[in-house]
């Protein structure tokens, strides 16, 4: 009988042996890969960095207070941080004081001028109203000259939008965004010029995300019958600060917050038990996620680096979601689908997610506001990150500019490239 508490050699060796074998494995398979494979840590493109780190935290989404299901999008512009472009179009002209003239990109100029000074557009003020009216007449006269038969053709000269460029007070401003920003404004190659580059630290090589022709976001209080609230109005008062934008009356949330919330919802709703989030290096996967003309590139490790939780998945009871933002980009489609998946997608066994909505999005509910609640917008924003951010829009795979030559590979014309490594941008060549 051995003495209690005596640990003999064999037991000690067992414990040490188990620990040794285990720690070797841990070192090789858990610790080493992110050092061996840079793609586990390094972003796929500078577009990915900028949309996650610069754009998402400063892009705000809120319900439009106009009684429809529309949303409003607002950019939070920071002095010395946000890149702005002032680009004239056939129907938009910018009047700028002498010292700001260099920030205006004229219609036919080859390079877009970008700045991080806090400049905004506004309707011409009193002091330049005369100048603006003159410009309007000039432009319309020029148009009439260009279309000599405009009267016979029953056309009328267009009304040109004329704005005044001015330097805003303070360090920040808010501007309504023209689009929902799923794919942001992006310039690269030799097509832009960065004025005062020292002010913008994020643009390294590649290109830059910018905000085009920002105007100030203003709101006014309104009452309509028994309802009252705030709504966008160019003649209202400007938003003072971020707190005001995010407070209950306006209720804006940044896209970054919504994406994070969407990821949380994806986790707690268990979406990941039925949907994978990876386009594997298999023909069936790149075809399943591809369009009629282009296969989807297989997922690379660095697509996921900005996620808290990643859901590669074990089972495909529903289709893979890693390229959803390209396959199904429409908010309305997702509204209908989450409300009644079996109707929206025949043969689907997906449960309906009516708790994402405050009211019936089909507009048949009793309430007049058929607005999905924040949970829908969060999951939608989360899904819209799938596949849109692996390359800059100018290198987009859905335009056939495939970062890894997927089509050539699956048609047997190319060598298999290890998709888990390498910078997508540098391999942007299409077959």
């Amino acid at each position, binding site marked *: *009988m051995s003495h209690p508490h005596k640990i003999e050699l064999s037991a000690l060796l067992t414990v040490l*042996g188990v620990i040794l074998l285990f720690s070797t494995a841990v070192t090789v*398979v858990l610790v080493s890969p992110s050092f061996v494979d840079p793609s586990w840590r390094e972003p796929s493109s500078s577009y990915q960095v900028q949309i996650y780190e610069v754009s998402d935290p400063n892009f705000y989404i809120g319900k439009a207070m106009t009684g429809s299901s529309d949303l409003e999008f607002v950019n939070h512009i920071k002095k010395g941080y946000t890149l702005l472009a002032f680009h004239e179009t056939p129907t938009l002209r910018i009047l700028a004081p002498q010292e700001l003239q260099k920030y205006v990109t004229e219609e036919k100029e080859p390079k877009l001028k970008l700045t991080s000074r806090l400049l905004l557009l506004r309707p011409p003020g009193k002091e330049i109203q005369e100048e603006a009216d003159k410009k309007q007449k000039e432009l319309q006269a020029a148009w009439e000259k260009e279309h000599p038969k405009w009267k016979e053709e029953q056309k009328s000269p267009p009304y040109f939008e004329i704005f005044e460029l001015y330097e805003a007070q303070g360090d920040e401003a808010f501007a309504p965004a023209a689009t929902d920003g799923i794919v942001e404004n992006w310039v690269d190659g030799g097509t832009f010029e960065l004025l005062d580059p020292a002010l913008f630290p994020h643009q390294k090589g590649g290109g830059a995300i910018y905000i085009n022709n920002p105007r100030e976001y203003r709101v006014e209080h309104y009452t309509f019958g028994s309802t009252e609230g705030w709504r966008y109005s160019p003649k209202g008062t400007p938003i003072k600060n971020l707190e005001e934008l995010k407070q209950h009356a306006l209720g804006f949330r940044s896209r970054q917050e919504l994406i994070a919330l969407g990821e949380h919802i994806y986790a707690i709703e268990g979406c990941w038990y039925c949907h994978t989030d990876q386009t*594997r290096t298999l023909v069936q996967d790149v*075809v399943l996620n591809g369009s009629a003309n282009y296969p989807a590139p*297989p997922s690379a*490790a660095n697509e996921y680096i900005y996620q808290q939780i990643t859901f590669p998945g074990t089972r495909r009871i529903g289709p893979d979601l890693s390229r959803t933002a390209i396959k199904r980009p429409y908010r309305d489609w997702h509204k209908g689908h989450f409300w009644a998946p079996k109707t929206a997608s025949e043969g689907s066994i997906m449960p309906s997610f009516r708790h994402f909505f405050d009211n019936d999005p089909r507009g048949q509910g009793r309430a007049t506001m058929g607005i999905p609640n924040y949970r829908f917008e969060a999951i939608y924003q989360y899904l819209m990150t799938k596949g849109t951010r692996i390359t800059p829009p100018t290198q987009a795979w859905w335009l056939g500019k495939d970062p890894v030559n997927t089509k050539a590979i699956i048609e047997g014309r190319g060598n298999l490239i290890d998709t888990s490594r390498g910078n997508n941008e540098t391999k942007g060549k299409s077959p």
Partner: protein
Amino acid sequence: MTTATSASIPVEYDDTPVKWMLYPAVLFMVIGMLFGVYIAFNTFVFPDYFSGEYVHFGRVRPVHVGNVTLSWLLSADIGLFYYFVPRLCGVPLWNPSLAKWGAGLWWFCNILGNFSYPWGTNFGWEYAELPVWVSVFPIKVLFGIAWGMVVLNLFMTIARRRYEKMYVSLWYTMGTLIWTTFTVIVGFFVINWVPGGISRVNVSWFYVHNLVGLIYTPMGLAQAYYFLPKLANTPIYSHRLSMIGFWALAFVYAWIGAHHMIHGPISQWLQTTSIVFSLWLFIPVWTVVHNLFATLQPAWQAYTQSAPIRFLMMGNIFYLLTCVQGPLMALRNVNEITSKTDWVIGHSHISLYATFTFFAIAGIYQALPVITKKPLWSKTLADWHFSLNFLGSIPFLLALWIGGFLQGMQWATWADGSTYEVFHNNLTILPFVQTIADMRFWWILRGIGGLIILFGNILFVVNIYNTIVLQPREEEKVAA
């Protein structure tokens, strides 16, 4: 021989902690399976019949998984540890009141955690769904503490043992205690400290596979090696072979997590590493399977006479099947077909249900008369229990395998041809939802199999309940 000398010294074992772990565990097995049957029907046979935020598949599935993996299997395994580790050491459990406090904490966080998922507490990583917080209770931390109490108690018991030579079950037990502690810490906490993205995915799969391979497997094998000789009253065939199996297991399992990501966005060399080590798994499996069969060889008639032996040996056969499947599924070409289909679900059920649940049931049948000092209420019911479990598992598992395989083959038809136009045309002819619709027959079959299994295990609960409540104690019977 030490056994002979120690047998002469009577030891009073306090089996209250065993009961505190085993009785609720058996109840939660049936509850967990009930949730399984619910989702099998409400998701796949009558999709979304009961609809809404708290009852849809995504929110209820983790209730099923959490109950059968943690509240049933892991709890039952701990209960059986409390039962056989003192008996193999020849000393009572080091600290029964620590074990009881631990059991209380264990059930508190398991019940609270596993039933909180419908209210949106899912942690979001597979098999690690246990919430970080439920209200003011840090469930993951409490669960870790409860597990730490189990580890401390068992290690102290082993350290104070009277028999010098350690039986293989103790080796597996000690391995489990070390591995589980590490694995739980990694999967519950460390995963949040590594960089986001694939690094976390890699940690997650490491955790997932260790949970099965380095927790349930050694726990189950420890039981099989202890209970089969006990039940059949034959000595183990080869202690050395069991040792080879143990060290092969220790060598192989921690390497193979990445085989869950084959063809996925994870480094190719890591995929290859995991495949190579997955193939090594044949060694530990073969040693166990051969050893258990050879152990029963002198007493095969016991198979026909004893339901627990049938559970153990059928579990052994399923263990062979699951471990032949596992390495093959890791091969790139097989994986292309089976991965992301129901085959995977079948594979996880054959290991955690048809193997280790069968082992644990066999162990409970052996332990129950000893800890209650009452004979089993009904041997016939036990026979039915086995038959229904076995007969239910056949349609259940076959449906998942065949259905999954056929679906994988359907997906592979998209890759027939040589140009993208052809590939895409294949997809147009056979859209994804059609491959879901074609699964219906197999999903109905799976649901029926699940119902049979559930019914069989309700008989088990009845049998245990009646043993505890209705049967007189053996000494009382003798006195009467």
